[in-house]
């Protein structure tokens, strides 16, 4: 039966192959286009929000920020010549996948897209063009508005190219369960040495929970921990997009991993997947004395784990340091990029910059969206610094977080970060949780990722 069907199949195959060849030829055409200027291409786009001025030009946006609709409404009410047409294109990886597919298909991408800093290199490197260089649209003159870390995260070492407009960041801090530290009368640690000691003290005084959870599924959090030791593991520059640097085989990385491996062996910490609901439950039950994490953790985890704001015993402290030279670091954050399929590139570039570019939008981002700003003007405003957070016992948390945000210098990521994170996760979980050798683990991870980079056609260079 298979032989006969094979014949028919072959015929159909020939027909379809010729069809798809034609289809493929079409999608590469967009590579050569640099700017578009069709003001009416979006006239019939369907939007999640209500468009206020129906006959104005529309610019389409994908974003998943909580409370984003308020920002869009504010923009549309205050602009009569251009209107934002917003859709939630999915969150994180789901959105990037969709974005990749639409670029591959040659149509369907929005004009403006929300991207995390760590996801941007994959859309800049290589043949396929995804993002427009906003430097060509005057973005460079706004450099002074944003923190250094955020600016470096969207320029990739270039002095003229800007690939996105920074929106939020995730300054790295420590959440402290104040009730636990008060009850057992242990001093809140400021260094990693004190951190370990605090864990031992708490245990000795009868605390049954764990000092913290080292996330087995952690990704960016480890990059932040390494950065504290001055260990840069990835290198990527937009000015030389065919080269990448990957190096976990360095002292800083080994020190950090050995430290957590030791804590795990001593039974001071938990090693669980953060996305597991059990971890959330433990967090809510006071089973973790601290959590070293990005500041946005509050909007997400703390609010989720407690029924009311008053139930939450957490306060924010500076993240523990190795010594006085330990830099301020960051975990996460995102920006608005303009896509190659933007129907009117110039208009899209302006909208991308203006969406979070005024006081109302920035404040709404903070209070409705739980975003931590990268906009210097807001970071230094007294109103922002004095803002109190009910889930942190009315702490003026920004007093602690804002300096970290300003001190952060920026991080670098790979053009295949999803793959790198998957490899990272497996390697680190086996080192910290299962106690396998740090030295062989990091060298194996380095060579795995370097091999992958070569296979993808990149030249591997040193990270320095």
């Amino acid at each position, binding site marked *: 039966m298979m032989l006969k069907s094979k014949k028919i199949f072959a015929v159909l195959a020939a027909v379809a192959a010729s069809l*798809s060849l034609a289809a493929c030829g079409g999608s590469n055409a967009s590579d050569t286009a640099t700017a578009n200027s069709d003001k009416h291409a979006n006239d019939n786009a369907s939007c999640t929000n209500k468009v206020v001025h129906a006959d104005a030009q529309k610019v389409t946006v994908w974003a998943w920020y909580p409370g984003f609709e308020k920002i869009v409404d504010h923009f549309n009410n205050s602009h009569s010549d251009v209107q934002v047409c917003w859709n939630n294109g999915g969150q994180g990886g789901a959105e990037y996948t969709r974005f990749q597919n639409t670029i591959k298909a040659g149509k369907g991408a929005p004009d403006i897209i929300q991207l995390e800093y760590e996801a941007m290199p994959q859309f800049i490197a290589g043949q396929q063009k995804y993002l427009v260089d906003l430097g060509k649209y005057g973005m460079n003159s706004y450099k002074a508005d944003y923190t250094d870390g955020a600016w470096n995260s969207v320029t990739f070492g270039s002095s003229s190219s800007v690939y996105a407009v920074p929106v939020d960041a995730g300054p790295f801090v420590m959440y402290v369960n104040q009730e636990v530290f008060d009850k057992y009368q242990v001093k809140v640690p400021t260094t990693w040495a004190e951190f370990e000691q605090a864990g031992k003290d708490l245990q000795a005084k009868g605390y049954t929970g764990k000092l913290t959870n080292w996330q087995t599924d952690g990704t960016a959090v480890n990059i932040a921990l390494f950065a504290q030791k001055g260990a840069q593991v990835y290198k990527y520059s937009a000015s030389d997009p065919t080269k990448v640097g990957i190096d976990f085989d360095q002292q800083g990385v080994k020190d950090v991993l050995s430290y957590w491996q030791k804590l795990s062996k001593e039974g001071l910490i938990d090693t669980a997947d953060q996305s597991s609901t059990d971890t959330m439950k433990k967090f809510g039950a006071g089973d973790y004395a601290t959590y070293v994490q990005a500041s946005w953790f509050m909007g997400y985890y703390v*609010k*989720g784990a407690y029924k009311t704001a008053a139930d939450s015993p957490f306060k924010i402290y500076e993240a523990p340091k190795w010594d006085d030279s330990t830099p301020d670091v960051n975990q*996460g954050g995102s920006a608005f990029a303009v896509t190659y399929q933007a129907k009117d590139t110039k208009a899209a570039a302006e909208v991308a910059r203006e969406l979070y570019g005024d006081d109302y939008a920035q404040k709404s981002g903070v209070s409705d969206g739980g975003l931590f700003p990268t906009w210097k003007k807001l970071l230094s405003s007294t109103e922002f610094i004095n803002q109190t957070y009910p889930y942190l016992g009315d702490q003026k948390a920004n007093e602690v977080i804002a300096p970290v945000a300003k001190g952060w210098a920026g991080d670098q990521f790979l053009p295949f970060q999803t793959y790198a994170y998957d490899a990272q996760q497996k390697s680190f979980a086996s080192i910290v949780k299962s106690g396998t050798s740090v030295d062989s683990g990091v060298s194996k991870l380095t060579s795995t990722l370097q091999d992958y980079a070569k296979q993808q056609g990149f030249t591997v260079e040193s990270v320095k």
Partner: protein
Amino acid sequence: MDWVIDMSAIEHSGKHAGSHIRGNPRVFTYVVLIVCCCYFLLPVWWLVVASTKTNGGLFNGSHGSMWFDSTMAFWDNIKQLGTYQDGVYWRWIANSLLYALVGGFGATTVSVMAGYGFAKYRFRGKKTYFNIILGALMIPATALVIPTFLLMSDINMTDTYWAVLLPLMLNPFGVYLMRIYCSESLPDEMIEAARVDGSGEFRTFFQVSLPIMTPAITTVFLLSIVGAWNNFFLPSVVLTNPNLFPITVGLSQWQTRSTAGSASEQIWNLLTSGSLISVIPMVLAFIFLQRYWVGGLAAGSVKA
């Protein structure tokens, strides 16, 4: 939940005490069935309970996961479902109903015609044709989703109702079932008699054959509806506009929204109450239409 089943079991065994089930160790049967019912209902009960909790209650409520929290939030959750993201939830339910009914109807029509054609006509290439269809049952969906998406993009079909509806028409199992049913239960003599009476092929199909095929048609229709209602992978790729999402894609987006890292928000309570409401239509359909399942599948599957 457990006591509900216990009660009905006791009630029934009481009523039929001493009745004749030849050689059947009745107690054993009851025990097996009760254990099975508990097992199959356990997650459903969890869902019912979970849908009455607030987000915090799900994690930190009293009385554990299998009993109600002290805060009863079911109606609040329902209200929130109606307002969260402008009540897009109900739109998703409506979309799912549309996809299920229209898609189910289309798939059934196509399958019934094809099954009838395969069973009642001899034509060149039939055997190969049918074998290819059977082979189609074995192809992994992932192999098709990406190329389908790319091809759809070329003709501007992504982000439309058609992008979800049209692929649903493909139901090889329905064809297979209809073919066997027609071969077994639709006598050639009847069709031949209609032909002799001068009835055209379509008239014969509609007036003579269809009425006899009703049980199998109902089954194929139900199977198609369930398939369309559960449809997840393809719509999640070809749709970006949330106004077109079926409920499965919408809820899974809420799930990633709840678990993902940066700048997200936890809406587990909407996820649980939304899941509960979304399974109600199909569960009711199952309970009231269950005899149709048995009828159609019986005829289709006994062919040994």
